């Protein structure tokens, strides 16, 4: 009985996110990203920076980067002071954005996008879509949209990126401290930026 009451309270407290609005936002963002990928003026390695800038603008509108960074750190977030949190978010958001941009950039723009449906969850709405490549390869991608109507997590092939990083950070922080983790992240970010 008490379990039912707790569950009921939890559902009652769950934020109300308009599934249609969330789907429209995801659709519009995906369409904008594909537009960039198909743009002949932005093709090739020589236009990488321009392409990334355009994709970054699209993803900044759709993704709640700080929320994604916070989720990725999990319970360790609570152990950080405000300055450490800001430092982590500033670095990790850039790496995360870079990761997504590289993933998106791997598609040619000729892929077919299919929307599978939506499913409410305690934190918002899960918008399910899949990308079908020319060789009929299906890549399921689920966007988790929060009350801010922005994406707070993405799952690709059933792997939640926030959950994945949480596990990776856990393993690093067992043998190292926050400073050690930040050193690795900042070093990676520097080399990525230099390569662009």
């Amino acid at each position, binding site marked *: 009985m008490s379990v039912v009451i707790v569950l009921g309270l939890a559902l009652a407290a769950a934020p109300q996110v308009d599934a249609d609005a969330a789907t429209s936002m995801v659709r519009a963002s995906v369409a904008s990203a594909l537009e960039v990928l198909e743009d002949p003026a932005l093709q090739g*390695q020589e236009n*990488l920076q321009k392409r990334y800038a355009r994709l970054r603008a699209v993803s900044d509108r759709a993704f709640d980067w700080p929320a994604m960074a916070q989720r990725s750190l999990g319970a360790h977030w609570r152990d950080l002071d405000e300055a450490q949190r800001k430092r982590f978010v500033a670095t*990790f958001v850039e*790496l*995360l954005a*870079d*990761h997504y941009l*590289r*993933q998106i*950039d*791997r598609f*040619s723009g000729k892929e077919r996008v299919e929307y599978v449906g939506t499913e409410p969850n305690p934190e918002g709405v899960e918008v399910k879509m899949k990308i079908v*490549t*020319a*060789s*009929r*390869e299906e*890549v399921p991608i689920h966007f988790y949209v929060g009350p801010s109507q922005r994406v707070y997590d993405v799952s*690709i*092939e*059933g*792997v939640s*990126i926030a959950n*994945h*990083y949480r596990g*990776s950070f856990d393993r*690093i922080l067992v043998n190292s401290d926050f400073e050690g983790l930040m050193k*690795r*992240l900042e*070093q*990676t*970010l520097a*080399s*990525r930026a*230099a*390569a*662009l």
Partner: protein
Amino acid sequence: MAATHAEVDRAEARQGQVRAARFPELQVLLTVTTALQGELVDEHGVRSTRSAYDFNLTRDLSAAFGGQLTVIQPLYTFGKLDLRAEAAEHGLYAAKAQVDMTRAEVALEAARLYELNLYARSVLLFLEDVEGIAKKSLEETEALLAAGAAEVTPQDKLRLEAALGLTAVGRHRAEAGIAQTSAGLRAYLGLPTDQPVALADGFLEALPAAPGSLEDLIGMALERRPELMALRHGIEAREKLAEAQEADYFPDLFAVGFVSGAYTPGRDFVTSRYVLDPLGHFLPGLGVGARWTLQWDGAGQRAKEARADVTALEQLFVWAQAGLPAEVERAYRDLVRFRADLAKLAVSLPQAKQWMVRASADYSAGLGPSSEISDAVQAYVALRVAELDAAYGVNVALAELARATGTLGTGDLGLYPGGGAR
């Protein structure tokens, strides 16, 4: 196919010849020859010609018009005609079964070529996808190396270049496969050599047909395979032919009717019952007769030859009865194996993809090496190609199973191309 249809025409003609032998045989002979005129003179009962000893070529020369019609109706042949008719009928059934055999062989070969063409096209599309991604990864890696990124090594670049080399080799093989199977399909379908081959399916997928139990399939094969039908009728035909050959020891009894006549202008008609003038007469007649054509033991030896054919066909029949279940089982086990592969790959492929996603996420944050992405991609590519192999294997096994059960191209059972799946 046209050649086997000609065999049916040949068997039908043979049957027609036997049927024709039951009808009366007609022989007609018409002649026009030179003749001499002659006038009969009665001299006390002795007939002679007035000019018998006074021959004048210009005065006596004439032309004789003669004709002879003989009708022979077989009455009793000691079974020769009936046995040959039965042999011809079984021969026709055997020829028709051989058409079905050839049709199934052609259909199976066309199915193999179709599936192989689709497989090669699908592999090509997949490799082009992989190649596109690998090229972008190589560009990224080169940029990171140029920027002096610590997490990237020259080996990463070489690994990607090696992968691109392997992809190119696979692409060449797929392109050659498409060209070769297209040429094969054009040959089997009788299309012009310059006509492009367009397939109904865009991408290879395993057909869903459920074939039932192995025992049922074997039972169906033994009942429906045209090879067994052809052998059964072939044996019957040879048996009957052997019996017919043995009947050649006996005569053919027949009724005969004939009319013979000749007329020569200027030549009197001899009415004597003892003398028949070949240049002027009319002679009808009816009778019965018997006709033998004996070649020592030729009939027996011909029967022996036909019986040797029977023995050979019977041995083939025994072999086929043992071989067909094995053929069904081989296709069935292939199907089971490839379906099991697909079931396993349905689990393994997503796992490989998850590995790629995780390895890529770690690499992006500097938490993992790029070599792990390469390992994951390599595993994924191998599994995806294995999935296409298995889908091809399922479809070909279904076509072979349909052929083995005698249902290929008949639409029965829906094994291949599958009940509405294509």
